[in-house]
């Protein structure tokens, strides 16, 4: 009955109630979003870091190198010579070195040349089919397979670069030979092949250079194509000149007749191997046997090579530090709103208490105990907080669904709105109730100590 009375009382003044609930909902929603996003974000970023002590790549921003190589979110810093990095990959400190070569995408999903170790690093298994063995065979991540509805044996053509709108490679089709199990990590959104596949698709040079030269000088297309048919492009150092070799992509694209030939050639004549000299890759993920490497390699690499060694843990901590400022600011804002909602509840209760003095006195005449009046006031406040919390945690999750849709398309990073982080959300719940309790304290005590006779005589 007391609970029912409290419930009826809070809806007797709907505007006060709605204001208080609205404020509570807003603050709880913001904090819920922050709690879930922060945790899932860090979890995702942490799990992708497992087994990566250091990233070797082209010089440039170390953060960019880490983001592109470990998290697949940024563009790579450039390419490095596979011949020179091979030496480091065999260094006695190294436990495992996973090379990565970027080039193409398929409707926005990156196609990454690597070794089967990469799949192992993410603890992915083959849900269907096998790991790639030959050139142009690919393993697709779980999310890619699901979203694009890819099955074993499906063939597709890659698009140049990292944007889905890029130019399509008309020659060379990828064949799906395996589908990886879902891991919740970046690998779910990748298409993996071996490294020679990437080389063969692009031949020797970096894309941008070749690309531009082609558009400036279409005449070379024919020449490039001839080279191509001569095969052994990479084996012949003379052809290693920028643009020259790359031209035939353009030529083929413009000239479908030749495309057929190129295709045949790719698949049957000269499959490149990992031992191809003078080739380039994008980066190498290093796991050390001897953790001293973490301290020694950055200097060692910088002094002796044209590459850089970036420490992903250090770089990501920098990112979290930067994010942390923003997240904390939002948290303070949310707690501020919660404080205001507490004050709003207090004012509402305090004002109605004046009007309800006679009502309370009458309840006492009817046999109500002091404690029961105290409970009515406390219940009212706590009910408001419960409703506010309920709406807030729902609204927060709706927010995460929307956020997730945006980040999914931009970063291939989804958030799970259904996850409940009992510990932190429990604290938030407790805090919400505490706000209600404190807001109701003074009005409740006033109700408790109400002088019935005086109230009724003056009313």
């Amino acid at each position, binding site marked *: *009955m007391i609970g029912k*009375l409290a419930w*009826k*009382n809070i*809806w*007797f003044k709907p505007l006060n109630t709605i204001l208080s609930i609205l404020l509570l909902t807003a603050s709880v929603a913001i904090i819920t979003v922050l709690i879930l996003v922060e945790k899932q974000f860090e979890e995702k970023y942490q799990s992708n870091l497992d087994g990566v002590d250091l990233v070797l790549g082209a010089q440039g921003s170390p953060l960019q190198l880490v983001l592109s190589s470990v998290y697949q979110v940024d563009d790579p810093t450039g390419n490095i010579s596979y011949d020179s990095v091979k030496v480091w990959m065999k260094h006695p400190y190294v436990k495992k070195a996973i090379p990565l070569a970027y080039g193409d995408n398929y409707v926005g999903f990156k196609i990454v040349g690597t070794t089967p170790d990469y799949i192992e690093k993410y603890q992915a298994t083959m849900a269907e089919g096998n790991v790639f063995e030959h050139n142009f065979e690919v393993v697709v991540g779980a999310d890619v397979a699901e979203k694009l509805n890819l099955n074993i044996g499906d063939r597709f053509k890659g698009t140049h670069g990292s944007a889905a709108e890029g130019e399509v490679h008309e020659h060379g089709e990828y064949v799906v030979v395996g589908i990886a199990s879902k891991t919740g990590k970046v690998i779910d959104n990748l298409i993996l092949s071996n490294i020679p596949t990437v080389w063969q698709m692009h031949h020797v040079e970096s894309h941008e250079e070749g690309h531009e030269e082609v558009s400036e000088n279409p005449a070379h297309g024919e020449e490039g194509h001839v080279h191509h048919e001569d095969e052994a492009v990479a084996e012949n150092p003379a052809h290693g000149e920028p643009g020259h070799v790359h031209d035939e992509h353009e030529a083929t694209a413009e000239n479908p007749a030749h495309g057929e030939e190129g295709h045949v050639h790719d698949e049957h004549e000269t499959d490149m191997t990992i031992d191809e000299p003078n080739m380039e890759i994008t980066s190498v993920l290093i796991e050390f046997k001897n953790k001293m490497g973490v301290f020694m390699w950055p200097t060692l690499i910088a002094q002796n090579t044209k590459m850089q060694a970036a420490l992903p843990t250090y770089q990501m901590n920098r990112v979290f530090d930067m994010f942390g400022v923003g997240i904390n600011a939002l948290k303070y804002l949310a707690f501020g709103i919660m404080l205001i909602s507490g004050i709003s509840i207090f004012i509402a209760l305090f004002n109605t208490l004046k*009007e*309800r003095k*006679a*009502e309370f*006195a*009458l*309840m*006492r*005449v*009817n*046999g*109500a*105990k*002091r*404690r*029961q009046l105290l409970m009515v006031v406390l219940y009212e406040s706590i009910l408001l907080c419960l409703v506010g919390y309920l709406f807030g945690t729902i609204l927060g999750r709706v927010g995460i669904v929307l956020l997730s849709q945006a980040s999914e398309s931009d970063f291939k990073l989804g958030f799970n709105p259904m996850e409940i982080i009992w510990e932190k959300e429990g604290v938030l719940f407790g805090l919400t109730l505490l706000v209600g309790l404190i807001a109701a304290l003074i009005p409740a005590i006033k109700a408790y100590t109400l002088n*019935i*006779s005086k109230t*009724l*005589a003056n*009313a």
Partner: protein
Amino acid sequence: MISTKNITFSYNKDQTFIMPDLFCQAGNTILVTGNSGKGKTTYLHILAGLLQPNSGEIMIDNKEITHLKGSKADKFRGKNIGVVFQKSHFIASLSVLENLEMASWLASGKKHTKRAKELLHKLDISEQAHKLPNQLSVGQQQRVSIARALINEPKVLLADEPTSSLDDKNADNVIELLETLSKEYKTALIIVTHDSRIKEKFTNQITMV
């Protein structure tokens, strides 16, 4: 049945009220009259157990109530004493019927919905049962107050100026209801008033001076 002996009360040292003794059988009515400031309402509050007298005793159904404290006093009051005030107060957010149910629940822990409906029917306000109290006219509100005072079938019914805010017709009506119902429920009825319209109707009168 209610009786009092030698009750004194003071709000401060300067003024002490000496309350007249009274004795009222179940089903009878006593009118307590007197001018303003003579302590009529104070007396009623003492009888209701809302104020503690300095001395004296109050017996309700052979039970001494001045020594009851805290929640025991609340419980006794809820069960045995019904009060009708000059101005009706209700729980504004509850309907008429829910107000009655609340009154019986606070006293006995049971809602007594059936009894509440019967009372409303007797007082001819059944149709207002699901309205909020402030949607009723003053006369109707006073009748709901009477219903609420009687819901727990108390031993004593106290009425504090029950007619002063009512017109002649409603005042007659209320007095008649109070009288017949207190007889029906075997309740001792004590009316505190300075309303001359009532004084003519009762012979049992105590005047406070």
